[in-house]
């Protein structure tokens, strides 16, 4: 019973760990927004307008087609992003730029609203059903001309305390990474904080031991259960093996005893059995007419 409790406890622990891991950052992130564009990036028509950068925050290619972009909380379906445009298929961890120029006939990436620098600008991205919110952001009024608002690192909306990281950005980076990663931040951090590898060694060995200790405990419990079941079976069957559970005899000794008994029985049988019986073998069917022989053999499993 105790073993069963241990197993249940371990299962509950695993479930708890798995349930506490949650994904706080959405699949699509409105990553960077410019409201008032006077001297910055131009569109294909040579026009300067505000723009909205959306980031595919997953590790797979996703299609934005069919989703909705809006600046009105009461009208989630304001700008339906056209379906069937190959350019709306955004590769993993990549960006796409929408021009807020109120010129939807200029192409897929030109929405039917403009951003207003004199007031707060609400921008939201909705799922194909027009009801499920994918991401939203509010750009505060008074954002300076030619400046952008968004997240310093692509797709990361919240810090450890769940506070939003949205802020006015130092660098304008339309359709490219908000933070330029020249070095692996994990490696840089380890170089600074763990130059001799002590922390990583202790942590890693603890994880390795924890994993294998859990396996040890679980398989010890499973093994004990299997042994108990096996003993009960052989005991109820009343075979020689039942002795094994009760005695201190090793497997080799029991095997030797079994072999000796078997040999003895065979010998007795050879001496006693002197009657030869010949019985007629009747074939009720012929392989020539058997349907079975005409079928192809099943493939080996």
């Amino acid at each position, binding site marked *: 019973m105790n073993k069963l409790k241990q197993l249940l406890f371990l299962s509950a622990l*695993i479930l708890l*760990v*798995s349930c506490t891991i949650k994904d706080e950052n959405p699949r699509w992130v409105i990553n960077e927004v410019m409201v008032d564009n006077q001297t910055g990036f131009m569109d294909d028509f040579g026009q300067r307008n505000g723009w909205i950068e959306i980031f595919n925050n997953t590790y797979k290619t996703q299609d934005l087609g069919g989703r909705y972009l809006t600046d009105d909380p009461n009208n989630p379906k304001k700008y339906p992003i056209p379906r069937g445009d190959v350019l709306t298929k955004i590769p993993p961890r990549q960006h796409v730029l929408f021009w807020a120029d109120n010129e939807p006939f200029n192409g897929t990436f030109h929405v039917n609203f403009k951003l207003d620098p004199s007031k707060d600008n609400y921008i939201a991205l909705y799922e194909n059903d027009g009801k499920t919110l994918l991401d939203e952001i509010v750009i505060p009024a008074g954002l300076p001309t030619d400046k952008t608002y968004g997240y310093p690192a692509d797709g990361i909306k919240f810090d450890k305390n769940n506070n939003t990281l949205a802020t006015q950005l130092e660098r304008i980076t339309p359709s490219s990474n908000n933070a330029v990663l020249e070095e*692996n931040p*994990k*490696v840089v951090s*380890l*170089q600074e904080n*763990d*130059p*001799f*590898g*002590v922390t*990583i*060694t202790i*942590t*890693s*060995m603890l*994880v*390795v*031991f*924890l*994993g*294998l*200790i*859990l*396996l*040890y*405990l*679980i*398989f*010890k419990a*499973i*093994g004990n259960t*299997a*042994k108990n079941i*096996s003993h009960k079976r052989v005991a109820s069957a009343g075979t020689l093996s039942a002795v094994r559970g009760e005695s201190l005899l*090793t*497997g*080799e000794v029991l095997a030797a005893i079994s072999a000796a008994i078997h040999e003895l029985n065979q010998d007795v049988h050879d001496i006693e059995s002197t009657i030869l019986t010949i019985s007629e073998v009747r074939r009720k069917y012929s392989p020539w007419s058997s349907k079975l022989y005409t079928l192809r053999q099943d*493939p*080996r*499993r």
Partner: protein
Amino acid sequence: MNTLLTLGDNLKTFWDYTGMANAIFIYLAIAKEYEPLLLIPIGFGILIGNIPFNEAAGLQVGIYEEGSVLNILYQGVVQGWYPPLIFMGIGAMTDFSSLIANPKLFLIGAACQFGIFGAYAAALLWGFAPNEAGAIGIIGGADGPTAIFLTSKLAPQLLGAVAISAYSYMALVPVIQPPFMRWLTTPKERMIKMKSPRVVSQTEKILFPIVGLLLTTFLVPSGLPLLGMLFFGNLLKESGVTRRLAETARGPLIDTITILLGLTVGASTQATTFLRPESVKIFVIGAFSFVVATCAGILFVKFFNLFLKKDNKINPLIGNAGVSAVPDAARISQVVGLEYSPSNYLLMHAMGPNVAGVIGSAVAAGIMLGFLY
């Protein structure tokens, strides 16, 4: 005359690139039978990858030229999908029953992973960056596919040196381990006779890959490619109803991938990147990691024995087997054990920590990947 000059230049370039390292590997593989299944493809791969040609001609034949045949084959290394396929084959050929019968042997497999992190620390001290140190450290796992998988992610520039070092030391396990096994054990300890492992039921064997996968990958999700395929291969073997798939995984598939892996790792290795002081350091650290792993396993068994009943003690000579290197390390336990007690057969007992080492090194690689990638 021009033709002769060109030929001379080409030969010089070839020599500069390969340093005839390929000849050494092919010699070791054929004459000494050191890991021939890997060293022959690697050695010949070095030959293929270093034939000089004019890249400007646009022939698309070089391993680093996008779209070339060698480049396409090399993607299995770059993208890291050869090692998990090899792991599937290893899973399909490995019998975990000695480990299931005596699950405390799992802990020896864990202890031997000190080799990985000892080598990691040594590489840091010798001036390698943490990601490079992680790639070098995994040599201590004595597991070629894991080493290649992790190095291709963390430090692809060291792939040739790490792969060759890992496989060379795996081949040299019979030379490296026995002196430390004798040094760290007393004659009395070497004579310890372990109980015969119990018979493991089919149900337990089927449960093993499922429970093993869930537990290890919950703890270390980054180890999923290796552990997932290892346990999948093992389920193919143990389920008893997918014999054809298991036979393919442990036979033709693993052989095919081994050929492609060895050949492309070799072809991607050039003397300009291989014959450097860094490679010498990697070889030294690799040897150190095997020594640390061996000693850690043996010392852990001795420590563990302090808590075990007299008739349940473990022979410390199986401690070395936790370094994976299946089944060579287990065979060494058997050979050294027989030297001291001709009736003490340790092979089946040593297979426990040996296969636990495979799981342990894959978990350790997952941790390294999580920390450094």
